[in-house]
């Protein structure tokens, strides 16, 4: 496979194709006949998948640093370039984006019955934006993608969302925009400082990283600016309250994209920018403890709040907050294990939460309610859906053998050396997560079927199965054989940890890898 890909020059064009295809498809979809919109969108999504999946083989995990690099001057004299590349930190995110795209399109097949062209066009735009964030290696480009993403999401929630959609859409955009406005100042400031010292003004990630030492005097301020943007996106407690609203009101595709990709942009931002640029500040004892504590508060807090949610989507939204807390904890754990774990949580949260949102969407299409109390006893009428939901629920709460466990376990064990107490507290979430997931599963699928409206609803059809089954297969595969994924990120994680190593204060526990 790798040889075949090399023979077609895959590495040279893959990123451009991935970025350009959806955005070029946008006008086509907008001006095509309404009936054909979804078919075009699906075709583009499949193409995107076929093109993107090649990364799995073409990406060389043994090589450090960026691959598939392109560096084209964009605005000369201002150091802005079309600079893209993929490394171990981003490869799985890119893959996840392209894999989710056809599923997202397919899941909207029936649910979106008005303004179809606009909807699919927005999905396409969203996808370009998401991919762009993960492949951009130029901070200007990154910021553009980062902010541009808000627009399609805003309209997706605002137009196709449910009853309280305007509030949710506005909250989402304002929250995220306000969070990231300082990042622009920080980016320009960095470029100015580095440019003044080196004489070359450049927004290139590599260039800024190389001269990150020059930024030390302002590390605290700059990190805060970046951290604010990313923390809102993650979302880290206490910046999370936009998420339940946005998740709940968005249409299925929107919820899925939010959960699977958008939230990861925050944690990815920390891994890629905020920490490597300012490790001395970010990983110092105080800041590290604060961030890890916030992460752990998020983990427990969100799980507890999820437990009492009457709305199924809201519950899953809060569970996302909890899961992303694990990612944050893993990032601040700063060991190869915890960072690998963080990336794994990013992937597996994408799969399981994505699947949960898909299934809630399917339920919603049937019954037009998200309230848990409106359901009950569905397992009898929809055994397939119930089975899939239970598997996914258990994957979400980290049952070993399914995907969720791998990441959480690695995060916890990796971070334990630095934050034993915090990890200890975080680990209690195994109880609470089981609490909210099982309780809600029980109230939806088990117990007596009392509401006669639920009698007639049908089980999953073939299209829906085609959305869910690949995800469940992936959950089991990653749960039992995560080696291929771990190996693809191992190099990057190793490199990352070495990069920030010097800044780390002494861990609470000695290195278990030391020879004995």
């Amino acid at each position, binding site marked *: 496979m790798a040889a075949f890909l090399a023979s077609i020059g895959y590495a040279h064009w893959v990123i451009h194709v991935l970025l350009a295809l959806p955005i070029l498809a946008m006008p086509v979809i907008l001006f095509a006949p309404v009936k054909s919109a979804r078919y075009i969108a699906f075709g583009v999504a499949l193409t995107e998948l076929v093109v993107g999946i090649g990364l799995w083989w073409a990406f060389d995990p043994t090589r450090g640093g960026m691959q598939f690099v392109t560096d084209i001057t*964009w*605005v*000369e*004299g*201002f150091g802005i370039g079309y600079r893209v590349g993929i490394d171990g930190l981003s490869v799985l995110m890119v893959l996840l984006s392209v894999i989710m795209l056809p599923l997202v399109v397919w899941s909207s097949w029936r649910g979106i019955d008005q303004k179809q062209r606009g909807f699919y066009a927005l999905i396409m735009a969203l996808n370009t934006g998401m991919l762009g964030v993960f492949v951009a290696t130029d901070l200007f480009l990154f*910021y*553009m993608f*980062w*902010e*541009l993403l808000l*627009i399609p999401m805003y*309209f997706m929630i*605002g*137009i196709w969302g449910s009853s309280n*959609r*305007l509030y949710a*859409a*506005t909250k989402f*955009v*304002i929250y995220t*925009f*306000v969070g990231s*406005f*300082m990042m*622009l*100042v920080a980016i*320009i*400031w960095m*470029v*100015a400082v580095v440019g*003044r010292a080196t004489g070359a003004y450049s927004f290139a990630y590599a260039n800024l990283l190389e001269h990150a030492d020059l930024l030390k005097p302002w590390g605290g*301020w700059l990190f805060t600016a970046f951290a604010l943007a990313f923390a809102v996106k993650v979302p880290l407690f206490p910046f999370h309250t936009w998420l339940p609203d946005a998740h709940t009101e968005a249409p299925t595709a929107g919820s899925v994209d939010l959960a699977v990709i958008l939230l990861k942009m925050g944690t990815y931002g920390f891994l890629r920018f905020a920490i490597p640029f300012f490790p001395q500040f970010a990983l110092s004892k105080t800041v590290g403890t604060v961030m890890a504590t916030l992460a752990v508060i998020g983990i427990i807090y969100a799980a507890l709040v999820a437990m009492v949610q009457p709305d199924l989507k809201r519950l899953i939204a809060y569970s996302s907050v909890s899961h992303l807390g694990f990612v944050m904890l893993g990032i601040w754990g700063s060991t190869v294990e915890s960072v690998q774990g963080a990336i794994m949580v990013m992937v597996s949260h994408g799969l399981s939460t994505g699947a949960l949102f898909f299934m809630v969407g399917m339920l919603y299409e049937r019954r037009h309610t998200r309230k848990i109390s409106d359901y009950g006893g569905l397992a009898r009428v929809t055994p397939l859906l119930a089975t899939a939901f239970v598997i996914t629920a258990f994957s979400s709460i980290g049952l070993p053998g399914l995907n969720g466990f791998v990441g959480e376990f690695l995060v916890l064990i990796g971070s334990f050396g630095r934050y034993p107490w915090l990890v200890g507290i975080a680990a209690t979430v195994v109880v609470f997560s089981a609490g909210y997931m099982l309780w809600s599963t029980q109230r939806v699928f088990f117990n007596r079927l009392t509401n006669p409206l639920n009698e007639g609803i049908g089980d999953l059809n073939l299209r829906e199965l085609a959305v869910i089954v690949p995800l469940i297969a992936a959950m089991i595969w990653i749960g039992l054989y995560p080696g291929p994924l771990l190996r693809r990120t191992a190099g990057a994680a190793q490199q990352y940890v070495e990069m920030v190593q010097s800044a780390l204060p002494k861990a609470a526990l000695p290195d278990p890898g030391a020879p004995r």
Partner: protein
Amino acid sequence: MPIDLSSPSGAVLALLPELLLSLWALVVLLYVAWRHRDGYDMRTAGALSLLGYIFAVAATGWLAWRGAHAEGLSIMIALDGFRFASDALLLWIAGAVTILSVRWLIRQGILAPEYYPLLMLATVGMMLLAGSADLITLFLGLEVMSISVYILAGFDRTRRASAEAALKYFLIGAFASGFLLYGIALTYGATGQFNFELIGAQFAATPPTLMAKLGMGLILIGFAFKVAAVPFHAWAPDVYEGAPTPITAFMATGVKAAAFFALARVLAEVFPAMVALWRPVLFGLAIVTMLVGNLTALSQTSMKRMLAYSSIAHAGYLMLALWAHSDEGTAAVLVYLLAYSITTVAAFGILASIERAGARTVLLTDLEGLFAVRPFASMGLSICMLSLLGFPGTFGFIGKWLLLSAALHQGQAVLPIVAMVGSAISIGYYLPVVLAMTLKPTRTRQAHQTIRFPRPARIAVAICIFAIMLFGVWPNVVLNFASQKVVQLRQAELPTGPR
């Protein structure tokens, strides 16, 4: 092409665009004195005046192309890239406003073609103001512009709001002129000169006296009024709301731009030696202006009023570039004003098309559900809002980025942070516009049926929207142009910032 400004022929050459435009204004005036009866006359006058702008642009272009520069001292009028660039910008604004006005005036029943000569004379004033190299020219340009705009603001005299706007603008404007004039007098008193270069040299040689400081302060106050900086802004919302919509656009873009160009020139050429004195003033003005403008805009329901406050906030942003006092700052002023003027003209163009004859001003709620009826207009207005917000992918973002860069490169971080806080606040009033148009349903069946979007205006707006998006992702042309050495102001070498 060196031009000796002390010779009559040299002066004529240097003032060619202004002269052409003035003469043409007189020609149009003659025409309208003869025919001023119906819509046809209105249209003809508009078309004729457009021709005048084209002449002026051609003349400016010719001067720029020949590389006109002053031989020796710049007497009365500047001859540099910055003047040509600012002239071009002002002329394009005037032209665009003319195009937007043509049908709008007819529709509103304002059948007085004197409008166009006045607009042209205002433009002459703006060009003189922006290109002045002498305090006398500065004052004359300012007054030519102001007096014309006073009339234009009250042009729809049958509406009380318009008359009131004119009165307020006139009284406070004249009041402010007094301050500016007093400042000129004191500066003259301190140096004995009116010429920018000579004054600058004088200040560079001797420490500033009390009279010089007071003079500078009063001049700054005069300009602060023109750019509508807080607390000298109070006239702006009222006048913007009351004035005919195309004139509002003209004031928000042209008048503001001309004042900023002149201020930039004055600060760079007249008072560079006193940078340590005026920077704190600009600093304070900028912060107050950005915050008050953005916050007050939050509580507006009228679109025009909201845009008025937003334009106040934008004046605050622009002060970052002036504060920077660097080539980057100059480039940022040019780019930002271009971006801002394109966006504002387009926004007002769309709003003007929505206004009905004699009806009250357009409210935010009037826009509800516009997308369903007028998708392109509402998309255009949405893009304008995003550009004003400084959203990446739009021209407005490029402008804002340059502003922030200019300030940050001078080691100033507080102003950019406040500017971004301001931006963050501003999403609170730009977004509801988008929301109302695209996400809310129409109030009634008949909503938006009275919208008339004449073709010339439509084309002009479409070009603007296209430019907003194009320059948003491909700003190379603009950036390269603005960062050329030739369009920069002569900055005296000064020990500034950590650079």
